[in-house]
């Protein structure tokens, strides 16, 4: 009797605190996710009330859709370059603004600001920069590679995407690195100095090993963000020039809603999810193992 009461009491507490979150999460995440998986088994066009069950046909069709794999490859390249640059940049900035330079709080705020602007707005602003401001500067100063719009050349348009994404994300990652840097115990640093470490050695052998967990988080966040990029892709290049910068999220959207092939589009979304989840989990697993080994 008493045991049962205790259980009830616990259950009540649990529902009280976790219930709302669980319900919200189920409604906006789990249910659509499962429903989405169901849609991959149909040939729905996104409009009709009728959904014909076609089994695994869509999963077979993915492998014939070479354009999808192109956009996937593009996403991987974009993410790989962006993730490295974002983290190098973010760590550099964090190191700079914790080193005690003048006005460092101002710089912290400044570097973080781009992250507060939504991806769509940011894309349109940079579109103006790349296709108008830079071109006009390039033509007046006779700088060859600036005098035509970057957005009309496939490789330069990709570079533009990466630059903007680094600019946008490194401020946020910088905050995490700042937290990591200030969390390094003072006595360890002092001990290092007494032992005769130079600045570079101090960074390499004392500070960096203490920051593994910051790196794990930042890498995880930047990888998922880059794989999911849609808004920036849409507003900066809109997949152009001639569809050469259309990344996976955008391709999936086009497939489902513009080509009116929702079943296949949804299947490709599931594929994108699997790839993204796989990469993230692998990275977290490796990071965690290192972290445990270091400590």
């Amino acid at each position, binding site marked *: 009797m008493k045991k049962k009461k205790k259980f009830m009491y616990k259950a009540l507490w649990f529902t009280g605190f976790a219930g709302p979150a669980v319900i919200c999460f189920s409604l906006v995440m789990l249910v659509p*996710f499962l429903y989405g998986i169901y849609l991959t088994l149909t040939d729905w066009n996104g409009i009709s009330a009728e959904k014909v069950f076609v089994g695994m046909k869509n999963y077979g069709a993915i492998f014939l859709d070479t354009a999808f794999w192109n956009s996937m490859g593009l996403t991987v390249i974009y993410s790989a370059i962006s993730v490295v640059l974002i983290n190098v940049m973010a760590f550099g900035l964090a190191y700079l603004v914790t080193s005690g330079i003048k006005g460092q709080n101002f710089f912290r705020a400044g570097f973080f600001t781009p992250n507060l602007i939504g991806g769509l707005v940011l894309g349109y602003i940079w579109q103006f920069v790349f296709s108008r401001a830079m*071109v006009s500067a390039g033509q007046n100063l006779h700088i060859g590679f600036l005098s035509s719009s970057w957005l*009309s050349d496939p490789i330069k348009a990709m570079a533009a995407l990466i630059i903007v994404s680094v600019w946008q994300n490194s401020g946020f990652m910088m905050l995490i690195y700042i937290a990591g840097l200030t969390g390094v115990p003072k006595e360890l640093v002092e001990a290092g100095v007494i032992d005769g470490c130079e600045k570079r050695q101090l960074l390499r052998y004392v500070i960096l090993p203490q920051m593994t967990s910051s790196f794990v988080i930042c890498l995880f966040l930047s990888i998922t963000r880059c794989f999911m990029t849609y808004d920036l892709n849409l507003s900066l290049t809109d997949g152009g*020039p*001639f569809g050469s910068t259309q990344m996976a*999220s955008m391709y999936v959207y*086009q497939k489902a809603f*513009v080509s009116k092939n929702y079943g296949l589009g949804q299947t490709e979304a599931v594929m994108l*999810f699997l790839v993204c989840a796989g990469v993230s989990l692998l990275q977290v697993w490796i990071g965690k193992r290192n972290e445990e080994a270091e400590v």
Partner: protein
Amino acid sequence: MKKMSCLGMAAVITTMLLAGCGSNQKEVENESKNAPESAEVSVENGEEPEAASESGEEVSITLLNTKSELVDQFEEMAKEYKEQTGVNIEVVFTSDVVGTHLAERYASGSPYTIMMVDRPDVYDFQEYLLDLSGEEWIKDGGSVYGVTIDGKVYSFPMLIESVGLLYNAQAIEDVTGKEFVWSDYNTPEKFQALLEELTAGGMEKPVALNKEDWSLANHFFGQLYNQQGNSAEGSQAFVDGLKSGEIQLMENDRFNSLMDSFDLLSQYNINGADPLAADYDMNNTYFAEGDVAFWYNGSWVTEVYDKTDKIGMMPLPQKDDADGANEYLISGASKTLVIDQKYSTPEQQQAAKDFLNWLVYDEAGQSFMVEDCSIIPAFANIDKKVSAPISVSAQSFIQNNATEFWYQTIPGDHGTQVGAMLQKYMSGNIDRAEFAGEVEKYWQSLE
């Protein structure tokens, strides 16, 4: 334990990715303004439909407008309509691709009562749409310009639009010193001679070309499907031939003639150094200011009368003048109104039909279309004349029966797919034969 929770978090965040892909929320809506009022009304309708229909005052309908230049006019009209008839119309605007936007709305079970769509959308959404065959306006032009599927008319032709070469006569006359009459220049040779004359006279690049998908693929390249016997059957037969692989574009006169004209325009394109950096608004400015004399676009252009009213439209001069290609202006009902029958109550459907009748037969409705929105009406009973010069120019072709059929049943992804191909051609990445091959491949993949 820590490891587990971290993995859990990873799974959660990656799940968001998928949800993010599925539900893109970038719609531009201004529903919030009337939200409390309309919510109240719809609840009332749901609970006591009879009470609502008896009073007749309570009906409230929604209308989706997809023409950005008409946003203010529609808002204004809704206020007047409410005063005149007591029916509340809530106007919503979206700048999304209409079919995509409606697919999202129908997926969530909340479409609009009246929707302004493009013609291909009528075929896609047909199962949800109200059959309008019994309406009065059918006899006054509805059957000609509305979309008919299996003998039933499903759409109300809101307006007629034309596609072609816009000219700024003032800018041309300033250079040449003589009056510009478009029919003096409607062959490629005469047209090129004029372009040369303009260039020599100081207008460095007399043509503006857009880089947008819809303009390049659907409007410019669309002429290939339009100029096929000047009939729906001719266009359909040509498209079927493309799908089955029978038609070889490189051996097709219309294709080569069209691409020759494209090359000619490209040669004098003000954005020629970097054609894919073209900007629609900049082109609009160049044209309005007279920096260029020609702009391939359509009768919907409005913001060009700051400097001069001597602006009009002409067909694109082509080598192959079969099917009146150099005489007839491509015209058709592009935007069209449809009524939802699945989610709207019978009262709302009736109110929507009444609204369409009001547009055609009521003085206020006619003046809203013709005077406020300067659109060319599709109905024979309306004798009001449009005043905007481009519309006047287009209307003169329509009144002289000098119009080319506009094939508008192209697939939804024709714009993005063929647009990308034409962009590649335009920027010199592929040649004409490669371009033709890619277009053939696109159509054959649809078979």
